[in-house]
């Protein structure tokens, strides 16, 4: 593998789930990548205290909401005042309420501007942790798909994406349909499937996110965040049970290939 030399890994908190321990993730990365500087930078919007700049970013983020997952979004509709205010509160760290679906590529593009000019190179791995749910358009089935992560500059990892994007067991969706028809609260359904998937406020969240952070690192290192080995942390899980296996239950953290690679990196 042709390897990119890494200068630093920067971690940002764009309003991730409260149960996510970014400091623990930083510590984990320090252990895995002994020769790379790791820095937790907090809120990426913090350098922009000026009200007008915040309003501007809030408006742009509010403008990239996806209304209909089956329709490619058109741009140009002005967001409402309440939508902009909600985004402002998010940016200022006053709320972490999630549930809005965003266009992932457009969101990433806005976040790109938060990256200091001198650090926009492959030597720097920028990872934004948040709980925004984002999706990307799939031309094959012509609809948006929710994602856990988007590797780029910055890479974005969504704690809401971890819950919502990888599919739950089929039985869950069938029962959910029944519950909805009967008007029963879905909290009861979640009880039945406790532990089977990663949920909001899940205490396993930080451990799971470590794997996705390593995917973002490998993306910069070798150009590919993923691995075909289902037991490797770099496996691109599309189902909750795959995610849980790769991140929590596999006998090994990384497959032979990626484990050796990390060893070599730390020696040289």
């Amino acid at each position, binding site marked *: 593998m042709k390897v*990119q030399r890494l200068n630093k890994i920067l971690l940002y908190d764009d309003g991730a789930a409260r149960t996510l321990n970014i400091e623990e993730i930083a510590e984990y990365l320090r252990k895995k990548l002994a020769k790379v500087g790791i820095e937790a930078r907090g809120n990426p919007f913090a350098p922009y205290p000026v009200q007008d700049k915040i309003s501007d970013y809030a408006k742009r983020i509010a403008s990239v909401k996806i209304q209909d997952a089956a329709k490619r979004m058109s741009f140009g509709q002005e967001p409402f005042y309440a939508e902009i205010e909600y985004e402002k509160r998010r940016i200022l760290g006053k709320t972490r309420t999630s549930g809005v679906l965003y266009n*992932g*590529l457009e969101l*990433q*593009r806005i976040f*790109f501007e938060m990256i200091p*000019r001198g650090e*926009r*190179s*492959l*030597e720097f791995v920028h990872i934004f942790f948040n709980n925004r749910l984002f999706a*990307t358009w799939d031309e094959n089935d012509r609809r948006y*798909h*929710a*994602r*856990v*992560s*988007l*590797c*780029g*500059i910055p890479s974005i990892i969504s704690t809401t*994406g*971890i819950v919502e*994007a*990888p599919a739950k067991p089929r039985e869950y969706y069938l029962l959910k349909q029944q519950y909805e028809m009967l008007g029963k609260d879905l909290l009861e359904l979640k009880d039945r499937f406790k532990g089977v998937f990663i949920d909001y406020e899940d205490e396993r969240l930080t451990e799971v996110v470590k794997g*996705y952070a390593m*995917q973002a690192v490998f*993306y910069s290192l*070798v*150009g*590919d*965040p*993923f691995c075909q080995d289902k037991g490797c942390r770099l496996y*691109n*899980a*599309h189902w909750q049970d795959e995610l849980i296996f790769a991140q929590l239950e596999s006998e090994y953290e990384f497959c032979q290939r990626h484990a050796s690679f990390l060893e070599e990196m730390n020696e040289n």
Partner: protein
Amino acid sequence: MRIEKIKVKEDKTIKEFIDELSLSAVPILLELDGEIFYPDDNYDRKIQAGDRLAVIPIIAGG
């Protein structure tokens, strides 16, 4: 698709570079001289023969 470094063979614009590689509809970033940028913000920017551009695909997970 993975990150790939491409050597530019002759002087052209970023737009021409993207079109030649049929990448205009693919979500990517470019890196030149250690700086990453969005191609569509820099379509008119000139690149020269000998320049090494990294084509960085944006990859979604999950």
